[in-house]
């Protein structure tokens, strides 16, 4: 009897503990996660605009490689309730030379997106529902490449741990926008400069889908850190994509009038 009671007591108190602990820890973990993400966001505020040249190296499971050369212009929209604007222009492979992509990111509303097809000289407004689809056949989806806005995720701090030579805070991030291909992302932020060092992406079934590793960070204007080498591995298909950035320039004088449907049609 006593044993049984003791057992019941133990089971009950254990249940209470396991229930109570995540709730308490959850509140503070959510706050801590939000604070870390806010710090990451704050440190990137005010970059104004940037231009970069980018090489995408796609590798299939047999190790065969193909490359895309493109340029990206990004304009920061100061209103924190709106996302950034970006214009992507392809130079290689040559069959898509001149193809360009204009995106106006929004926080929770669908983004506005247009595609320019040079052979027909046609600008097409396209649906932005396709957030989880591959960008030009790479392992990066549209949502991986469009602006990462603070309000697009909810955050939970999981733990602190070493990441290479640095210390990292590990956050679980859940997309709050519609049509994401991910149930969650686990993101490693280094606590020295609050830069993303690694992201694990979990698919709609909750399985590990991809890992993105950031390398070769460089600082611009004594503030803004950009990774010059980003390597995405798809664990389910074995395919990989490496992004190599060069010629990064900040506050180049880019204006809203440089990122319009008209300029999309005319820019090279």
């Amino acid at each position, binding site marked *: 009897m006593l044993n049984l009671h003791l057992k019941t007591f133990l089971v009950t108190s254990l249940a209470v503990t396991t229930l109570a602990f995540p709730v308490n820890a959850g509140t503070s973990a959510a706050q801590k996660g939000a604070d870390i993400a806010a710090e990451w966001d704050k440190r990137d505020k005010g970059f104004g605009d940037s231009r970069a040249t980018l090489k995408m190296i*796609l590798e*299939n499971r047999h190790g065969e490689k*193909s*490359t895309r050369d493109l340029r990206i212009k990004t304009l920061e929209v100061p209103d924190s309730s709106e996302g950034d604007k970006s214009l992507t222009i392809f130079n*290689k*492979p*040559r*069959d*898509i*030379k001149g193809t360009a992509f204009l995106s106006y990111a929004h926080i929770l509303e*669908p983004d*506005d997106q247009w595609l320019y097809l040079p052979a*027909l*000289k*046609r*600008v*097409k*407004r*396209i*649906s932005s*529902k*396709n957030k*989880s*689809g*591959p960008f*030009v*056949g*790479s392992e990066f989806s549209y949502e991986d490449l469009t602006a990462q806005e603070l309000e697009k995720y909810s955050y939970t701090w999981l733990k602190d741990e070493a990441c290479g030579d640095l210390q990292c805070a590990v956050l679980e991030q859940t997309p709050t926008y519609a*049509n994401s*291909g991910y149930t969650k992302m686990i993101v490693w932020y280094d606590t020295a400069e609050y830069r993303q060092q690694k992201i694990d992406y979990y698919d709609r079934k909750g399985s590990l889908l991809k890992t993105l590793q950031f390398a070769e960070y460089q600082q611009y204007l004594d503030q803004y850190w950009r990774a010059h080498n980003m390597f995405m591995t798809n664990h389910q298909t074995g395919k990989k994509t490496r992004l190599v950035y060069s010629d990064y320039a900040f506050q180049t004088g880019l*204006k809203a*009038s440089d990122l*319009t*449907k*008209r*300029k999309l049609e*005319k*820019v*090279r």
Partner: protein
Amino acid sequence: MIVGVALVMSAVPAQVNLAYADMNLDFSGFLAGDLRLFSEGAANSGQSDARLNPSTVLQLEWNLDWNEGDDRIDFIPFARIDPQDSERSHVDIRELNYLHLDDTWDLTIGIDKVFWGVTESRHLVDIINQTDAVEDSDGEDKLGQFMINLGLQSDVGDINFFIMPYFRERTFPGSDGRLRAPFVVDTDRTHYESDMEEFHPDLAFRYSVVKGDWDIGVAHFYGTSREARFIPEINGAGDTVLAPQYDLINQTSADIQATFDAWLWKFEGIYRQGHGDDFIAASGGLEYTFYGIADSDADLGLLAEYHYDGRDSSAPATIFDNDLFLGLRAALNDAQDTTFLAGVIWDTETQAQNYTVEASRRLNDYLTFEAELRIISNQPTSDPLYSARDDDHLQLRLSYYF
């Protein structure tokens, strides 16, 4: 003196370097081999009976820009050599223009190509460039058009003004060519309504604006119609030929696309004066895309468009008088950019059906393969497509891009 000469000589290259330091010249293009396979011999007398029609296409492109791309000269010459049809063998300057881009305005002077419109199966409002009709029967290949195009951009929308001082005649297959009317179009017998003939200055204006989910364009064109009427004439050899007649028209148009989630709603409409009685024509439809079908990366799009055209028999003939288009678009979203588009244009009055299947795939960073199947079936003798009843064909294209 010697010092002076030396100074001048050293100064000259320095100045040249300074002036050209900011200039970028890019060269690219493609070389393609086309093979058309016809299922049957030719229906009309004079046409080549060969079932295989090989031809070669070369397009080069030079882009010279300076002022960080705000000033640019583009040059795109094009040539096709078709050993079976001398009319289909042709060269064209697709583009040779100077462009200046400013914050709120831009100016293009020279030969350029401009596309207007939103629908997929008919390009009703697209009128700036003449169709290079020997290239393909879909009307999407265009001849370069000489123009001065001034664009003004503001918060309330964009305005473009076009002056087009020289008209380009449509290309037509020659006597030996397939996909033509029973009588050959003789472009040496072209007639114009304007006394200035091809030098009539055509004018156009377009206003376009983006309002949230809506992309809206309104335009007006005054000038020589890009579509011809045909007048039977007897040529020097005593053969009946068709002489193209290009009339002056006024055309007001609107094109609208609404983008809601995975739905694209599209409308194009025109009101035209100058071709028989004034008439309206409209194309409207929708496209819905299923993204990531069956847990894959592939997208499947469903397209439906309806075409109405109210022109009378004194206007240039159209196949889109009362037609329904149904289509399927698939994109595998793979590294090879594999895409398929299949569709049928179905005449709801004559029951004529015009089937198209298009597929393309990048083989590597330089080579692309495309295939196009065009089948015309069930067309009555009254249908404009009747003369192409035996011209069902598969076209294969291998392109080398550089």
